[in-house]
């Protein structure tokens, strides 16, 4: 029952958020549905009498349909960028097949005898089409439309992956912040929406079928019910989007991790509270840096939290640099020169690789640093995920700097690492320094005293153009400089991932505590 309770609490607590996502979802789906219907039906009609084009077009949409949807979303990022437009294009491409195919099939399968009869009675070509061919094909076309609608609503759930919002965002955010009731609420909402649309069209379909028998009350009810639901959905689309239009806008994006959601909220709320700029949140962009960075360059995103190590190694593809301060300085210069992007501040914490072991053990054996661990390492079993053993900057490199001599080394799935530690299958694991499970399991994070792992200090990257447009931002972000220590970030992550608070609430509390809100 507590599970149900969680769900209701989630809905109650995040009513506004969920409502916003619902509206986004309906908007995106409905726009796609309208475009698909127009293109799909007219294409279906156009290919009716043209065998060559028919083969080309049906072949093409069939092929497009077989491309996995996630891949399709990714495929268009370099062309269209992230967000609503991309999602719309992908939804339209997927939705075309059932509509084109059913339109064509429906029209084609009309008994030629009936068309001949109509023509023979003096119907013009348009009358033959509109009075005979189309109405007879309509049930088939409608069933293709129905398939498309359900599919589009479901697929729109993936749109959040590329920052287009919608109910998928709740699911995605739930996954990334370990919040199962949010996942469930998002999923149920998508399913319900699809179900309602399906019922609505199904009711119309049924009324058409029974019409061939006798028009009766039940049938009329079904039809009104169906049109009613569709009309409701349509009204939704016409609802004015809250506070949109010409206000100053700033797009804040994050990668899909709990920590990033929290940082995103901190940045957004800070801006919203201290300026009159409207913040658009595109949180949890799939693919993280590899999709956000290009979008920053294109100007689709204005701000996002990034880690120095990621920028240095992954984006600039430079070789590791020991000193975190000189790394930051180099990064700042290169970003400004090469990308016209500004590192506005460093937040203070360093989310890098580290080694962790239970606090009690660490205390007993007096282990605080990697070097101290190395001395006693023959008493311990070490566990890490497969690729940590594989990577040059992982275990083998680490071993060259610190002479570890573990009793045993165990390769584990990344998600089972902490469980293995709890079961005492392993004694020491590698971990990220701000992982909330470190606090949950009361682990001690050891100090990398010879600085083997590169620094992954969190900072805020802003487009220079945005800074010029809103000069007040610079001072604002400077106030965040060094405001979050490793342990503070760990605490914030803990509140979201383990205590299931929303990133929104956690960020607000943080800002209040630091007196960063007006």
């Amino acid at each position: 029952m507590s599970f149900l309770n969680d769900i209701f609490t989630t809905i109650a607590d995040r009513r506004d958020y969920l409502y916003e996502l619902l509206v986004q979802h309906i908007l995106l789906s409905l726009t796609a549905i309208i475009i698909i219907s127009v293109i799909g039906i007219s294409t279906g009609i156009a290919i009716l009498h043209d065998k060559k084009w028919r083969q080309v077009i049906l072949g093409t949409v069939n092929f497009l349909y077989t491309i996995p949807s996630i891949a399709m979303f990714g495929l268009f990022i370099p062309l269209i960028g992230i967000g609503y437009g991309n999602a719309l294009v992908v939804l339209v491409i997927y939705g075309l097949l059932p509509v084109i195919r059913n339109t064509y099939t429906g029209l084609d399968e009309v008994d030629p005898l009936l068309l001949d009869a109509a023509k023979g009675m003096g119907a013009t070509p348009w009358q033959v089409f509109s009075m005979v061919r189309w109405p007879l094909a309509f049930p088939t076309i409608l069933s293709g439309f129905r398939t498309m609608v359900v599919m589009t609503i479901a697929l729109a759930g993936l749109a959040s992956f590329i920052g287009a919002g919608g109910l998928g965002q709740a699911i995605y955010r739930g996954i990334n912040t370990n919040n199962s009731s949010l996942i469930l609420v998002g999923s149920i909402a998508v399913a319900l929406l699809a179900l309602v649309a399906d019922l609505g069209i199904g009711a119309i379909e049924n009324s058409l079928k029974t019409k061939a028998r006798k028009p009766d009350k039940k049938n009329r009810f079904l039809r009104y019910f169906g049109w009613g639901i569709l009309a409701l959905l349509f009204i939704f689309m016409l609802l004015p989007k809250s506070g949109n239009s010409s206000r100053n806008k700033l797009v804040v994006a994050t990668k899909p991790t709990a920590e990033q959601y929290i940082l995103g909220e901190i940045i957004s709320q800070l801006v919203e509270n201290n300026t009159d700029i409207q913040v658009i949140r595109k949180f949890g962009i799939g693919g993280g840096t590899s999709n956000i960075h290009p979008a920053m360059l294109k100007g689709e995103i204005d701000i996002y939290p990034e880690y120095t190590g990621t920028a240095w190694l992954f984006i600039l593809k430079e070789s590791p640099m020991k000193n975190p301060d000189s790394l930051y300085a180099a990064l700042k210069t290169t970003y400004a020169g090469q990308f016209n992007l500004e590192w506005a501040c460093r937040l203070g914490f360093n989310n890098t690789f580290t080694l962790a072991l239970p606090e009690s053990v660490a205390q007993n054996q007096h282990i605080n640093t990697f070097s101290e661990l190395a001395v006693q390492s023959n008493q311990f079993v070490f566990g890490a995920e497969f690729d940590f053993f594989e990577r040059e900057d992982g275990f083998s490199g680490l071993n060259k700097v610190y002479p570890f001599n573990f009793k045993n080394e165990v390769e584990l799935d990344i998600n089972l690492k902490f469980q293995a530690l709890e079961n005492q299958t392993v004694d020491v694991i590698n971990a990220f320094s701000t992982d909330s499970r470190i606090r949950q399991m009361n682990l001690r994070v050891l100090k990398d005293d010879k600085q083997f792992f590169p620094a992954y200090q969190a900072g805020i990257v802003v487009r220079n153009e945005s800074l010029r447009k809103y000069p007040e931002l610079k001072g604002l972000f400077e106030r965040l400089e060094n405001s979050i220590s490793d342990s503070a970030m760990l605490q914030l992550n803990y509140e979201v991932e383990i205590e299931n608070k929303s990133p929104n609430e956690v960020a607000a509390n943080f800002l209040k505590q630091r007196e960063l809100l007006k």
Partner: protein
Amino acid sequence: MNNPVIEIVNVTKSYESAKKALNDVSLEIPREAFVAIIGPSGCGKTTLLRLMNGMTGIDSGRIRVMGKNLESWDKIQLRRKMGYVIQQSGLFPHLTVRQNIAFVLRLSSVEKQAIEKRVNELAKIMGFDESQLNAFPSELSGGQQQRVGVARALASQPEIVLMDEPFGALDNITRRNLQREIKEMHRKLKITFVMVTHDLHEAFTLGTHVAIMNKGEIVQFDTPENIQKEPFNDWVKEFITI
């Protein structure tokens, strides 16, 4: 036979398959006649019928319908002036009986009230009651469906009704009844009927004139009595005695 309502002169028609469907066919259909066209399958009888309302074009020759050359007719207007009944009735399954009968009138945007009046007239003639008018074709028997098909063809008060094996799919008893009915209607309405059939008995009982076709040509065209009395050749003699 002065002033024929349909006049076909030296018409030749071949399809893409290169086989000649009609070879130098001439035929004069007198006003108010009931012409039955009969012949073995593939003899070109349906093609001949479809020439008359421009559903099929011709390669050479000349056709006059209702005093006007076929080329100078607006085909759409011409067809609306001619009834058209096809095999298996050709009723529209998505329309009620009433809507089916009104179809031709709706094509030429006749006023709603006028349509209703005409449909009710026809319903009276054919003996359809209200529940039958509101039924869909699939709810009627085959014979009733074909009667609706005939009513539909008569809706626009045509001078000519073309029928392509209208009773082909019906059982014998229903067919005899419908034949009687259509004969009576021809007598009362004083319009021209042209009917393609493969049923000798039907052709000879209904037709005031019978056209016997073979291999794209009209072998003999005359009254049933004359044909029976004097078959044009041995082939006709054999054909009509089968």
